[in-house]
């Protein structure tokens, strides 16, 4: 049966890997994304998600180039997102080496694009990114890098995303992002039980236990960004912790075998 997946997320601004704290992106972690990919490859990560959070649409070309560069070293599934507003650019990212497209704002502004992409490339290719935010008025889904309120509650939003053709939900919380308090568990739980498609939990991981909590909330995969960049062998250690906590994770894929294969 399937193992629970561990996913490393790279947040890119203007081609550089940055730290994200409540959707503000300041600290540059890696000036070249390929270094991060090389590490994660060695550390038995199951998938990689790379997101372009630049404010400027002109970043699209450079981002596609980065996707192209890292895909040559990335032998696990690669999901790319940010500024996917038309079929052409979606196709460009896939040709550059992305396996899946992570789509956020188009679910509000251009549902027809989502449908068309899902029909053309298959549902498994479409990851619906949803960012939730809580205040006195309740929990709502935000789009456009967290700047616009859809007025929709997370459960209804996730169900609609799946209906429009998403094969996976990438769940993030603006309040928890980079805020070291673990995933937004109660909302995550509601979303997981409301949809048939797998849910990836993201946003807020500060300790390995947070990953375990995400799985217990119903997520099929758990993701983190900042924490994986700051620890040597981070994803390996995270998996060991998860395995010890009774979460079934994949432990194969050692770097040693990879090395023996590359000298042929």
């Amino acid at each position, binding site marked *: *049966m*399937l*193992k*629970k*997946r561990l996913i490393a997320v790279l947040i890119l601004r203007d081609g550089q890997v940055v730290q994200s704290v409540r959707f503000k992106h300041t600290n540059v972690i890696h000036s070249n994304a390929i270094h991060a990919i090389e590490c994660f*490859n060695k550390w*038995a990560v*199951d998938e990689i998600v790379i997101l372009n959070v630049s404010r400027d649409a002109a970043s699209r070309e450079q981002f596609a180039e980065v996707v*192209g560069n890292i*895909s*040559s070293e*990335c*032998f*696990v*599934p*690669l999901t790319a997102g940010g500024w996917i507003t038309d079929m052409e650019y979606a196709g460009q990212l*896939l*040709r*550059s*080496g*992305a*396996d899946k497209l992570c789509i956020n704002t188009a679910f509000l502004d251009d549902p027809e694009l989502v449908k068309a992409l899902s*029909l*053309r*490339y*298959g*549902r*498994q*290719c479409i990851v619906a990114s949803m960012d939730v935010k809580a205040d006195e008025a309740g929990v709502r889904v935000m789009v456009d890098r967290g700047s616009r309120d859809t007025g929709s509650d997370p459960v209804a939003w996730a169900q609609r995303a799946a209906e429009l053709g998403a*094969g*996976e939900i990438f769940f993030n919380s603006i309040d928890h992002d980079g805020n070291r308090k673990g995933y937004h568990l109660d909302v995550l739980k509601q979303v997981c039980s409301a949809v*048939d*498609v*797998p849910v990836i939990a993201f946003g807020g991981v500060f300790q390995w236990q947070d990953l375990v909590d995400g799985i217990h909330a119903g997520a*099929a*995969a758990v993701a983190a960004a900042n924490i994986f960049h700051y620890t040597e062998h981070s994803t390996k250690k995270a998996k060991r912790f998860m395995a010890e906590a009774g979460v079934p994770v*994949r432990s*194969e*894929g*050692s770097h040693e*075998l*990879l090395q023996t*294969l*590359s000298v*042929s």
Partner: protein
Amino acid sequence: MTEIAVIDYGMGNLRSVAKALEHVAPEARVNVTSDPGAIAAATHVVFPGQGAAPDCMREIRARGLDKTIENVIASGKPFLGICMGQQVLFEHSEEGDTPCLGILPGKVVRFPAEAMVDAQGNKLKVPHMGWNQVHQAIVHPLWQGVAPETRFYFVHSYYVEVGEPGLIAGFSHYPFAFTCAVARANIFAVQFHPEKSQAAGLKLLSNFVAWNGAAN
């Protein structure tokens, strides 16, 4: 010299297949192409695929690649189908009620919603997405050095029901056993993505590059 043609029919991500092949066979020439001449001239042919069956078949036919693929397979050169490139080798796909190439007997069906419950009673998600164990049903040059029950990366909502049991080279469970690898003569085809399956996938690809197309 080894020349690997990766068949390009305008769908999805071919780059990662090409990059993985280049990684395991730095001395080989890897050519992503839709040109029937280039495909016919290659020593090895990889038929990858992603997307929905109706679109794939339409693009294959629009480029005249159906005939090319038949010819390659008849020529006896090593042929590797991946994901949709495995499914469309069969006769028919339930996805969009699509007639396929019919090179291998069998059909492609969707994971049935009513069966998607595990032993603990938990509902299973479709697509089947993630790392699952592959049971090797036969001894084959492409399995050489790949440990039994190794995990490969899957992402699909449809799977193959073979018309002849002898075609089955490997199977997985989700939650029931389904065929995830088939082999006949110079054809080897898999539902999972070796190019996305880290070390085990690269091993399978390097076996393919070293393969002469004979079944054992």
